[in-house]
């Protein structure tokens, strides 16, 4: 629902950030967006470089990633943060999409992950490649889904690696909750 209450007169607008335009057009009065609204926002802002709607499940994941108050919604500051992160990932993705098809190959996904600083075993990389590819190719929103999960899981793991040795202990109840919320 479009909210027109924000001061937008020339030379006097409190928020001239172009991103705010996309955001507030969809967020409405409460200044927060849900997963569906994030999907619309991102699709309209053209982050994928195509007119295909952004994967809704991935939107849910992204809201989750930044959702500090467990509201399942995102405010403008978080949206800005997300936008920057997404642009970073888009840059990486585009650099591997050599034929400009909007998809990358399984092998390229593995290279991309390594280039982002994740050092994983061949098995782990293989797992990830299988999970995110459709017919051996990976779309941008699937790539984002992979990156979001990697980032969130790494965060969670680091928090439990108290001796910083690359090993962490998980209790069962904790493991269930951490993995299900990603």
């Amino acid at each position, binding site marked *: 629902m479009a909210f027109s209450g924000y001061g937008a007169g020339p030379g006097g607008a409190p928020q001239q950030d172009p991103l705010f335009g996309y955001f507030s057009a969809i967020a409405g009065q409460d200044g927060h967006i849900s997963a569906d609204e994030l999907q619309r926002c991102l699709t309209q802002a053209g982050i994928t470089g195509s007119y295909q709607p952004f994967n809704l499940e991935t939107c849910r994941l992204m809201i989750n990633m930044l959702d500090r108050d467990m509201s399942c919604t995102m405010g403008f500051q978080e949206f800005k943060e997300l936008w920057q992160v997404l642009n970073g990932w888009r840059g990486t993705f585009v650099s591997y999409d050599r034929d400009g098809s909007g998809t990358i190959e399984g092998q390229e996904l593995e290279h991309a992950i390594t280039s982002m600083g994740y050092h994983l075993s061949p098995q782990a990389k293989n797992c990830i490649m299988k999970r995110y590819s459709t017919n051996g190719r990976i779309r941008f929103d699937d790539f984002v889904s992979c990156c979001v999960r990697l980032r969130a899981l790494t965060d969670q793991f680091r928090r439990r690696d108290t001796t910083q040795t690359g090993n962490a202990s998980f209790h069962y*109840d904790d493991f269930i909750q951490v993995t299900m919320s990603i």
Partner: protein
Amino acid sequence: MACHSPYRAAPHMNAPPDQGFLWNIFQRVDKDRSGVISDSELQQALSNGTWTPFNPVTVRSIVSMFDRENKGGVNFNEFAGVWKYITDWQNIFRTYDRDNSGFIDRNELKQALTGFGYRLSDQFYITLIEKFDRQRKGQVAFDDFIQCCIVLQRLTDVFRRYDTDQDGWIQVSYEQYLSMVFNVV
């Protein structure tokens, strides 16, 4: 020392159905009479209590659970297992859908999962519903409820494989952790 087992209990068992009865059902579901019930045939035969199609991901999970030959469907022998599995879940669902709404709300979900032996925080149930509720009602329909339990079970299974001394704790390397999780979610 493990006192109370942290792992969930198996669903309540029913007596096996009459073979003739089961064969009738099988024939009705196997629309193209191929002798194998495919994902789409099973999906059409199942109801989630709304007019929307049964969750295809859940259908796939159920078929792959019972399809011993990796053929992408179940024959009559395997179908007996499918039928029992779904009937068990219907009984569980009915048990916990206390207000008979056809949906399981957050409180009912909490009772169900606590009944199975999971110990999860109240906040987490908000996450679970958000994650599995495809109808966007803030409650889970029958198919989404099954899907939620299937994923929980898969995570439990993978955890158990690493918890060799069965004390409810695992110690894993970063890569093991990623492999464990990416295999399931």
